[in-house]
Structures are given as structure tokens and as C-alpha cells.
């Protein structure tokens, strides 16, 4: 699965003229990448909106206002709202432990954090079915106690959390390792205790990296399809998230409606990306200052 891509562009990477490629090479390189990006990313995205409005704005808004679509949107947001904070707390805790302490099994922990990236989301979903499903290990017990996890909100949240949990930790570990423990030691020698050190020194130092990780995590949480599809049960208006709702509409040949809802998801993603770019811009402004 996609690893975390950090895009920290710095202006300083521009090479001096005398070792640069010729104009022709540069034009070719730039146009190839633009063309590729256009064909593979922009065109499909654009086609979503074209397809969505094909039968007119009325059909578009009707599809979005459809109670099933609204409930899917609500479920998606709710899932993200639970999974993202969970992973934020977990990610900070894991990154903290890994970068600031020496302990046995550290490498195992790092590998485990990467596991959701390495495993197919479908398998992630199946794992939960095996655990909590009617024929699963804990299924009968849960049934007896009338607790519903599969084909309900808890299952969806669990699957989403599983798939998105590396984002925050992966973003923070290198950052915190690079920062080291000196500022924290300084704070300790000045009398600050554990939590005071965290709130006043550690957190302010990692805040931009943390936000970045949270945003990536959120983007994935809202868009997750595979794992959620396995555990959700596809009950319309109840356990359908936006990606699942889109698939159902599409399979029913209501293309316009499906693309209308898809455009909703795209817009959520676009908002996320805008916030992400803003944060990158903010961090980039901070970085050169720190280097000086």
C-alpha cells in the first residue's frame, strides 16, 4: 500500500546553471511529467465532475440530497472523527516511545507499525471478520452479550483505524529522532515534569509534523474502501460509507448519481489537500529560519 510520501520542497535544491541540463532536456522532462500527471490524475478527476453533471444539476443535487448518500457522508465523517483522534494519540505515543527511549522489542514495534501498509486492506478486513464475525473467535461471546461489532459502526471504525494507523507515527518518528532529547533534558533540569515537558516543549516542536500526519491519516480514513467493504455489510443508509455508497450506485447503473457522490468525496479530499499545502507552506517558512 502507499507509503507516506513527505513532500518537503526546498527552494535551495535548484542547481546552479553550469551543472544544469540543457533547455531542451528540461522542457522534455517537465512536459513528460505534466502530461503523465494530466492523463493519469487530472483527466479522471475531471471526468468525475463531467459525468456527475451529465444529466443536469438537478440529478446531481438529488443524488447528493438522497438520504442514503447523506447517511453515508455522516458515517464517513463519524468514522474519521473517531479513527483519526485514536491514531493521533497512538501515533504520538508510539513515536515518543521509539524516539526517546531505549527498550527491547523496539524494532518489532517499528515493523508492526508498518504492517498495515504492507498488508492488503481486504486482508485487514478479513482479520476482523475472523475475530469478531459470527464464526470468529469472539463472535459467539459477543453474540451472547448482544454486542454488535461486525456490520456496524464499531467494525467500520476498527477496520479504518487499522488501515490508517501508521500515518501519524511514521510522520513523527523521523522528526522526533532528529530533534533528540536535549531540549527536554534542558526543560527537566529547569524543573519541568513529564506532562509539562510534553505540553511546553515536545508538542510545540512537533506540531506541524503532527498536523501533517493527521491530515494524511484523515484523507485515508475517509477514502478507505477495501477493509471497510469487508466488515460493513453494505446496508444502505446504515453501514455504507461514501466509497461503498459510490460503488453500490455504480453497480446499479445510476452513473450520474454515483459520480455525484464521488465528486463529494473528491471535494473532501481537495479540502484536505488544501489544508495540507497550507501546513507545508507554514513548515517551509519555519524551516529555513531554524537552519540559520
Amino acid at each position, binding site marked *: 500500500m502507499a507509503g507516506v510520501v513527505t513532500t518537503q520542497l526546498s527552494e535551495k535544491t535548484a542547481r546552479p546553471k553550469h551543472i544544469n541540463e540543457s533547455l531542451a532536456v528540461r522542457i522534455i522532462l517537465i512536459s513528460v511529467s505534466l502530461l503523465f500527471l494530466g492523463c493519469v490524475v487530472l483527466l479522471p478527476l475531471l471526468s468525475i465532475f463531467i459525468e456527475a453533471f451529465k444529466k443536469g444539476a438537478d440529478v446531481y443535487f438529488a443524488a447528493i440530497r438522497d438520504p442514503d448518500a447523506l447517511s453515508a457522508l455522516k458515517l464517513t465523517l463519524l468514522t474519521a472523527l473517531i479513527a483519526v483522534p485514536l491514531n493521533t494519540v497512538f501515533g504520538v505515543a508510539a513515536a515518543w516511545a521509539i524516539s526517546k527511549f531505549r527498550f527491547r522489542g523496539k524494532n518489532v514495534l517499528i515493523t508492526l507499525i508498518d504492517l498495515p501498509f504492507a498488508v492488503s486492506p481486504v486482508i485487514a478486513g478479513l482479520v476482523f471478520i475472523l475475530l469478531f464475525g459470527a464464526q470468529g473467535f469472539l463472535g459467539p461471546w459477543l453474540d451472547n452479550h448482544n454486542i454488535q461489532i461486525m456490520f456496524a459502526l464499531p467494525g467500520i471504525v476498527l477496520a479504518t483505524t487499522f488501515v490508517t494507523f501508521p500515518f501519524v507515527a511514521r510522520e513523527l518518528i523521523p522528526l522526533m529522532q532528529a530533534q533528540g532529547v*536535549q*531540549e527536554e*533534558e*534542558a*526543560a527537566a*533540569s*529547569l*524543573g*519541568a515534569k513529564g506532562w509539562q515537558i510534553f505540553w511546553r516543549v515536545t508538542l510545540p516542536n512537533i506540531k506541524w509534523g503532527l498536523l501533517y500526519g493527521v491530515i494524511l491519516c484523515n484523507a485515508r480514513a475517509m477514502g478507505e474502501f477495501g477493509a471497510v467493504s469487508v466488515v460493513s455489510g453494505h446496508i444502505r443508509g446504515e453501514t455504507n460509507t461514501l466509497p461503498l455508497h459510490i460503488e453500490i450506485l455504480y453497480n446499479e447503473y445510476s452513473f450520474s448519481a454515483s459520480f455525484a457522490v464521488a465528486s463529494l468525496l473528491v471535494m473532501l479530499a481537495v479540502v484536505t489537500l488544501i489544508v495540507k499545502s497550507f501546513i507545508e507552506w507554514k513548515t517551509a517558512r519555519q524551516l529555513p529560519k531554524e537552519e540559520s
Partner: protein
Amino acid sequence: MHIEVRNVNKAFGTHQAVRDVSFTIERGKLIGLLGPSGGGKSTLLRILAGLETPDSGDIFINGQRVNDVKPQLRGIGFVFQNYALFKHMNVFDNIAFGLTIRKARKAEIKERVNELLELTGLRGFEHRYPHQLSGGQRQRVAFARALAPKPELLLLDEPFAAIDAKVRKELRTWLKSLIAELGITSIFVTHDQDEAVEVADEMLIVQQGRLEQQGSPIHIYTDPRTAFVAGFIGHSSVVEQPNSLRGFENAASLAGAKAIIRPEFVEVGRQEEIAFPSAAEKGKVRHVFFRGAHLELDVEIGANRVSAHRSLDQVPLQPGEEVSVLIHRLYVISDESATMVENPLKVDPLPVHI
């Protein structure tokens, strides 16, 4: 005794960083912890601050054992090598940190910070962030921040290492006078002996985790107790066969076979320039190095080679020239000890009494 360290040991894995170190420090002294890099100086400092726990041994501050006292409660100010200033806080907040944590009153904090800004000459910089300051200014902020909660003891880990040579000299003098003014017991770590000699009231020489010698700079310079100290302090050349040198024929019988000779105790010149020609012997100039304020000569005496200083005012000597060499004193060293030996021939052999 203000600070007392008893039989402290610390190992990191198989590396023994501190070996059975004991010393005491009087209140108000400025101590230089000197030794080669990787010799355990910083570890010792961090153990005092409570940032590392010793494997064995005790630390007393004001007669109270502090081994189990957390760093937060030891009342120690620590200035880190790279200052470890809080990047996201301005100078004022950095200095105020220790007081803010203690929930001191706003007015009190302001007063204390202003006092320190005045003391460190940082007035006008209180709203700057660490990245907007020069190395020397950052060092002052780190210093002010450590002093703000009025610590009992100030620890400085290589405080001048990251500053360029010229500013370093100014800061040294500034720091010494400031600490003398405040009267706060301070320990600073350095690998630069000029720095230690210039700044410290007392030096602790540490090598491979062991405390080699403690004493005032002059004391350590004139009376090194161990072979390591004799070789480490001052610029010196090691002579393999001291008993072949004129005047020191019996020196080797005192201890091992080697000796250390400092250039300031070697006089080199044409025969007529030497005050005690009878105590001098023949040598040959191998190289002449220009050292700014003086010349350094590399002189060969039989199988031995020593280095000597020569003033720029004197007649220049050329490489290859035959010269007279008078060795005033040397340190005979064995594995453990160092003994100073004066040249016995320097007394006029035929005194004429009138």
C-alpha cells in the same frame, strides 16, 4: 564541602565511561573538568545533574545524598553544549521557563528575567527567537536560562565549543567574571586546556573515565602527578632515552625509561648565548616553525628529539645548524607517576669566590 562525589562508576554497555571517581568541591569555586574527548567528562557532568544514574557510588550536595533526587529537584542549572534553547520560544520566555514552571508570580518572573537580561547584556533581544541570534548570544541565553531559578550549582557542558575563536575568548573572560560576581559554584567541561587554565580556579583532569589529578592550574602545570597529566598539560615532547641527555644521566634510575620535556624548559642557541654552557650539549636543528609570536624549533640531540621555543628577536637559526641545547628540567614518567627533575649541572662547577 559543597559538592562531594564518592566512588562513582558508570558503564554504557561494555564501555566504562566513569571509573571510581571521587572528588570534593568547595562552595563558590569555578571548576574546569578537563580531558580528551570521549574521556567521560560529559557523563560525569550529566550524573551530577541527574540526567544519568551512576551504576554505583554516591553524590552529595550540601552533605545531602542526591542519588535518588530527580533532576527537577536538584537545584542545578545546566548549560548544554548546543544550548538546547527552546526553538519556539523567544528569549524572554526561554529565560523565564524555569520560573514559569514553578508558577512564580508574573511580576516576579518579569523582574528576574529583566535582571538576567541586564546581566547578560541581552537587553533589547528579549523578543527575538533563538534562530535570530548569533552563537555567542545563544550561549548567553542558555546561561541566563540556567541561572533564572537561582540554582545551587551551575554545570556547563563544553560551553564555548560551538563559538568561533575570537568570541570565545571574550566569552571566557565574561563568564569568569560573572561567575565570580555571582559566587555560584560552577563546573564546566572542556577539552581545551588553554580554556581550562585561563578560566578555572581548580581543574579536574579526567582520562578514560578516571580522575587523574585535581588542583589549581598552576599546581597541575608545575607538579603533574601522573604520566598522562604530564603529557596532556602543556606542549611537550616525549624523550625515549632521558639518561643519554646531559645532566640527566642518572634520571632513568628514578623510574621508567621515558621523560617528558616542555619547550619552555629547553634553551637552544649558539654556544655564547647559553648561560650555563657546561650544562648544555650539542644538538642539531631539524626544523624551524613559525608560531606567530615565537619560533618553534625541532632539535635533535643524539637519538632524542625535543622541541624548543625561540624568540623572534634572537638571531635566526637555520635547519641543519649545530646548536647548544640546555635542558632546564624534565619530567621522568613511568606508567603511574611523574617526577620532576632539575638539571643538576646548572650550578657553576667552578665557583670563584673573591
